[in-house]
């Protein structure tokens, strides 16, 4: 069980790192371009919101999986 948790914790770190790297690609910050918009939100804003919320979700997952989470 601990082995799986450790493996998943590393996966969470990789996912967080991937989200951060994606942030600096044209996928999130295409220079001088704000389409496609979602509900009017420009591209960098809605993708940026997805990234920042994604990082908080990964923080919550990481908090559960981290090896210290069950220790006092």
């Amino acid at each position, binding site marked *: 069980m601990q082995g799986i948790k450790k493996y998943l914790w590393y996966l969470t770190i990789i996912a967080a790192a991937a989200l951060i790297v994606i942030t600096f690609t044209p996928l999130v910050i295409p220079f*001088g371009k704000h389409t496609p918009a979602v*509900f009017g*939100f420009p591209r960098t804003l809605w993708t940026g919101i997805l*990234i920042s*919320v994604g990082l*908080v979700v990964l*923080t919550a997952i990481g908090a559960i999986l981290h090896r210290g*989470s069950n220790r006092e």
Partner: protein
Amino acid sequence: MTKWIILFSILYLGLLVYISLRSKKKVKSPVDYIFAGSNIGSALGFMTFAATLFSTFTLMGMPDFFRINGVGAWIFLAVSDGALVFLIVWFGFHLRKKVSEKEFSGISSLLQSSFGNKIAGYVYFAGVFIFLIPYVAIQIRGVSIFLHATFPAFLPVWGWALAIVVIMLIYSEIGGLKAIMYADSFQGLILLTVIWIIAMNCLRWFDGFENMFAAVEKANAALLSVPGPEGLFNVQFLVASLLVIMLIPVTQPQLTTRIVVMKNLKETHKMAIGVGIFANLIIFPTVILGYYGAVRYPTESTADFIAKVLLFDQPGIVAALAIIGLVAAALSTSDSQIFALGTEFRSLISGPDRKVMLRTRLAIIFFGIAALVFSILSSDELVMLARVSFAGTALLAPMIFTAVFSGKRSGPMIPVATFACLVIFISSLLGWIPDQLFHIRMDLLLLLFLGVFSLLVNLFSRNETNEK
């Protein structure tokens, strides 16, 4: 509006007095005063952490940042804060583990014992002093200018600054860290409430998000994409900003202390999640405020724009709440930073408890006065000055990581290199040397250099246990 301001001011000050006196009763030892008994739960922990992290820089600086530089401001702060909270899960565990091995009195003393020399502690203290005092000062100045613009006949800018510093010092000196934490929680709630009420009023003016973005596109389409109208948000600026912002809980003592004084790791992790949610909730309304300004007040000065959006375009009761919210935002960050500097000062001195506590209290007053003086002299660029503060303290991160993660005593090389990099960075800020080298920003370059250097020094250092 005036009657609402008087009413809210009385309520606000009354609550600060109540919190200070209530906390004072619970202070039984220096540890209670300095570390709030080291028994903080997740709810209080996340509110105090969030209120300390988000200051006037959020309520005044970020709307202006969106107004002038556009959507990249979201990546600049919200994504960086997402990385920051994720880092707390990992770093919080190792920091608390390290602290549990040795008695904790501050990061300065932790560094001294980990490196086996005094230099590390002094370099850290010098770094946080140099870069935190201006950060505290710009917040006090930001609010003072705003209050002076609103009530020009009442007090000069320095008078407002003095009043803020005196209030902050009184409740910090009386109740210690616990009083600051309770005050922070209350101030954080005010900040969040005020910013959402104002944002909703601004959104109503546009009649919805789609109309707002359409109006911004018509006014200045460059605000909807990066690098923004002024070309600020290039990849290098955003990457460097992410690094220096996510390192804030590692390098700035007011936040490091909050990680250490949490009841246990589970509460620390819950606190990190709470801060992440709070960050998104508090940054999002600043987008609306900023774009409202971009459409209605594109050419106004920062102070005029802030005064209009927060006060003159709002109903009296909301404007009064905004004023209290701004003061609360400035106080909640400044008090923690000044107190943390006092804590770090305490960790560098020794002697009988009473003498040490007296010196610490005097040091806190001295730091408050230093911030006051700087607030009267500093410039008005809130966000950029805050970023400089983050970049300066970020240079301390490799030294702290080495202390926390390495079991080796690597001697004075890393602290000395850190000091040299601080001097180089300050020289570049003062324009004595270029702020870029090989087209790379100086802050990014120095941080990368220190990271690699610390790794190499650590690799070739002797093991602490072998040495013993």
